[in-house]
């Protein structure tokens, strides 16, 4: 089975190291996959081969879906954002240092165990949801969860959450079928007055896979939180939406105390590994960071 290639930023590295082989089908240049268009219901459809830099700079996305634009503008590096695409970001393979090493087979590269679980998993999950403990790398996956977006393939339309599943299948990074082509992402109508923030907690200033990342979107009406979307990455084998945090926010005045109480709910259900205990307080801190910034934005 050939593998689709859009920007090629993930696949090229896998091919160089030898963990991915075989034929490639280029789809990145197809003009129909690179459009950002308004939909009949007032939302937007983004072609899957739209580069992230284009997404981050698009006026309609920046104003209507600031959490998505901020996420797209903060991930990876400027050079990669210019060629990496939104579809590629969603369907990229994980960055686990066992999976990426051609000498250490794992559940996702033909092995029968996860070497990170019993090995060195310092940068791995804090929500142990399945046999593979690599965090899902898709920053835009988290952002699109926060927007309850849909994904369009050449076969069907599905909620973005279904692209990732529940983390129980350790053998794959997404749940599209072999040969199924992701063609677009569909956003519901924008909500007026939305404010958003994105943050990735890393050791350096830029250009690092997140220890934890979070995106928050808030709509405040008449002094209370009328809508909230909060999702995180770097902590689970899938991008995670945090309904408990959202529920804690809804209907309450957006105060510092509310944000702190809501952020604490981010740890609900966390089951860190022996080496990833630090990710739980870091997750709470990162969620608090984006809530406060979205509250101020």
């Amino acid at each position, binding site marked *: 089975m050939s593998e689709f290639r859009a920007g090629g930023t993930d696949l090229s590295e896998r091919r*160089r190291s030898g963990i991915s082989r075989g034929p490639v089908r280029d789809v990145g240049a197809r003009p129909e996959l690179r459009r950002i268009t308004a939909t009949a219901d007032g939302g937007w459809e983004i072609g899957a081969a739209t580069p992230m830099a284009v997404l981050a700079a698009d006026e309609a996305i920046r104003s209507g879906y600031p959490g998505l634009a901020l996420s797209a503008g903060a991930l990876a590096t400027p050079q990669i954002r210019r060629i990496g695409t939104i579809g590629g970001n969603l369907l990229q393979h994980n960055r686990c240092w066992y999976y990426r090493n051609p000498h*250490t087979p794992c559940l996702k590269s033909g092995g029968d165990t996860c070497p990170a679980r019993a090995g060195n998993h310092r940068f791995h999950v804090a929500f142990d949801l399945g046999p593979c403990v690599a965090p899902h790398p898709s920053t835009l996956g988290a952002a699109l969860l926060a927007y309850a977006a849909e994904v369009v393939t050449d076969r069907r339309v599905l909620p973005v959450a279904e692209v990732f599943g529940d983390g129980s299948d350790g053998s794959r990074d997404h749940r599209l079928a072999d040969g199924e082509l992701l063609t677009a992402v569909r956003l519901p109508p924008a909500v007026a007055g939305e404010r958003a923030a994105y943050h990735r907690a890393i050791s350096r200033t830029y*250009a690092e896979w997140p220890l934890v990342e979070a995106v928050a979107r808030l709509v405040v009406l008449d002094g209370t939180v009328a809508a909230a979307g909060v999702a995180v990455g770097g902590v689970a084998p899938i991008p995670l939406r945090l309904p408990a945090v959202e529920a804690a926010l809804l209907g309450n005045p957006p105060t510092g105390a509310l944000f702190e109480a809501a952020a604490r709910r981010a740890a609900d259900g966390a089951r860190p590994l022996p080496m990833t205990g630090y990710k739980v307080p870091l997750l709470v801190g990162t969620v608090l960071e984006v809530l406060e910034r979205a509250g101020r934005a």
Partner: protein
Amino acid sequence: MVKVEINGTQHALPGPLPDTSVDTLRERLGLTGTKLVCGAGVCGACTVLLDGQPVVSCLLPTDALDGHTVTTVEGIDPEHPVARAFVAHGALQCGFCTPGFVVEAAAFHDDWRARHGTARPEREEIAAALAGHLCRCGAYVEIFDAVAAACAGEHDNAHAAAPPRVEAAEKVTGRARYTLDVRLPGQLEGVVLRSAHAHARVGDIDTAAAERTPGVRAVVRLLDARDPEVRYVGEPLVAIAAVDRHAAEAGAAAVVVRYEPLPASVSASAALRPDPAPVYTGKRRTPNAAEGVLVPTPWKAPNLRGPVGQFSESAKTARRLLAAAREAGDPLLVEGTFHTAAQVHTAFEPHVAVADWTADGLTVHASTQAVAHVAHELARRYRLRPEAVRVLAEHVGGGFGAKLALSHEIVAAVELSRAAGAPVRVALDRLEELSVAGHRPAAELTVGLLAAADGSLAALSMTAVADSGVAVGSTVASLARLIYPAPAKDLADYDVVTNTPPGTPFRGPGGPLTCFALEQAVDEAALRLDTDPIALRRRWDPDPLRQRLYTWAAELPAWRERGAHTRTGRYRRGVGVAAANWFYWHQTDCEVELAVLPGGRLRVASAVQDMGTGSRTVLARTVAGAFDVPPDAVEVRIGDSALPRGPISGGSRTTATLVPATLRAARRLKAAIAEATRLPGARPDDAGVRHAGGVLAWPDALRAAQETTVTARRPDDDAALGRSARRPFDGAGALGAGMSVFLRATSRLRTGRGYTGSVYLAEVEVDTRLGHVRVPAMYCGIAVGRLAAPELAAAQAHGAVIQGIGYALYEQRELDPHTGRVLTAGLEDYRIPGIADTPRITLHFDEDGFEHVPGGGVGLGEIATMPVAAAIANAVHHATGQRPYRLPIRPDAIVEAVARGDIR
């Protein structure tokens, strides 16, 4: 077929083509200005413009070029303001990352000028634009300056002034040819098959299928037949040469190795268990992780070598004093156990060699810090006449200590070339470079420091257990002898051997580790004594050079006002100090050749190499200064073992060796030129040839001179002037004198009078919510005497600080706990500092104290990096009240300390 316009020329490239653009550009089109470093889109060295937009060509499919335009560094106008600015500001060291920076910065500049005219961008704006680029040498300060100046319009016109670095233009335009770029006719590509086991006896190695693999031209065995054991994952077994890398890899995959696995100790704790799996059975042929010769040392346990305790003084007294203080609960007793992480050099040009073994002799292009030494070793190993071996290194893309030896990629290339009868290149990929090409050892350091009630230093103990993998030879605790004299010192160095790759020397071997533990202990003692930490060091440290640096540091507003920082709330600010002590070394057997050529040009030659530290420039500047001509009037020939023997680039010895020899050669040449003028009473002086009728200025005398060549060895230092400087190994008693003699007898290394010193202040900001530690500013006092090339000295110091920040905050080699395999095998997992992590760095060079050295100065590459992590750690303690006992000080450590309640 891919149709693409590259640098203004249309190409129609028939397939099959390499998968990614970088390989197509480099291997198919010979556009080697574009560099391949990480292969993963992390470092940006391969950046090119695709339809005017900077992208990483290592991740850009070749097929994606079809119908587009590409601009590589070769297509950037050398007179572009950014190119000019990089040259004028010396915004590079080894130059291997430079083409990527130049391409991206040129695009940023053009866009900036279109939007903002000649407004000067802030550092933050430049950093965000260049966030996808890394520079291992740490030239970020100069890159900031260059980009800002270009954007501000300061380089719209060409400058006449000589650039700080003589080869800068070659590196900025991508013309500079590194070993990785060498392409000889008929050249084959070699790869190395490595051990899959941490410890195994290797039986039969069947290479028959490999030899039959299409394209394979030679297969050679690298594993020593006398010692058929592998002791770490990645140990070289076999090398295969083929027509291209794919064929060589296919050949490697066809080799069948019969392993008999043995129990392995893949961590220090496993190796130190009672009844551990021994790393060495029988005679221990341990690789040497040190720069010097290994002193014979007993083994205390199967995997524990040591103690090396000769640097102790009244050790029993020290132990008794410390035990009594512990018993009594003496608050002036400071004790702690510190852990440092393994740091990997990861020079951006990998270890690489291109060997060509012919009937006439052996020629090897190698990325090495030691052309002369490697040539000597090759001649010895293969029983060749010395003149039949030539090692070349025109440009070297970084080394930092990892390229000092005849290492396995050179051996593999040589043996494959001999077997194949063709030139062979062996280049490590980034996974290999980060796994098996050397590292600074991780260590556990246990310190006890007792201050007396009168504020003097009563006793000091340090035990260091360093894990250099299968190698030994670390020196950490011993260094604690030399900076603070205490009447009683108990110092012990151990090596624990493990089934992991060998350590190698790394910029001031041992020094940063000693500093991290000792300088934090001194800081803690100052707190307990309620004394200013600089004042305490002034009291304890007798070194006259550092005394002046302490005076300078104590007067800095950053220090005087440190009490004003907020140490509550989310963001905590603090300031820390640390000092370091290092040696002044030079090499004795070196020669410099100096010639005046017809027309008056000068040519200086020595078999040294320039790994980015600036030896080429130091030679040019020294000669130019002696003859009062511009540096570009001096041709420099280096990087060729056929030239008169030059020093290795290690142990901060290069400048201290070359400058005195060059000055002596200049005096000789001046005398020869004066004599040849046959003017009455002619004699040379500083201005020119003085004669009965006046003075013939040197530039004129050179033009009139006949071709003349002189050579000179490095002279001894001035004994009379040196009397006031500290003796070699001063502070180490009779042992120090012995060490000096030992080094003299076993190596070409001469320890001169006077210690080099540094005193650093670090300002930090700790985000207690997200664990992020930022270093907004560093103040660096350095005493190495007169600077041979001040701009390059500053660049070296900036880079040393930035590497030190990596050591303090980000860098950690991580291993799989079961196999010892290196997991941080790419630059996304092995995190080195980026441009945005660069502090405001204030340098203060104290240029006195080395007047006895001809030229007045010595080397600084090592002393400049040593106290960085210690100063940052002390600043983190000042900011948070929590002492960092472990490196690196990453967000996980901070948020855990907050979660535990240690930081409140």
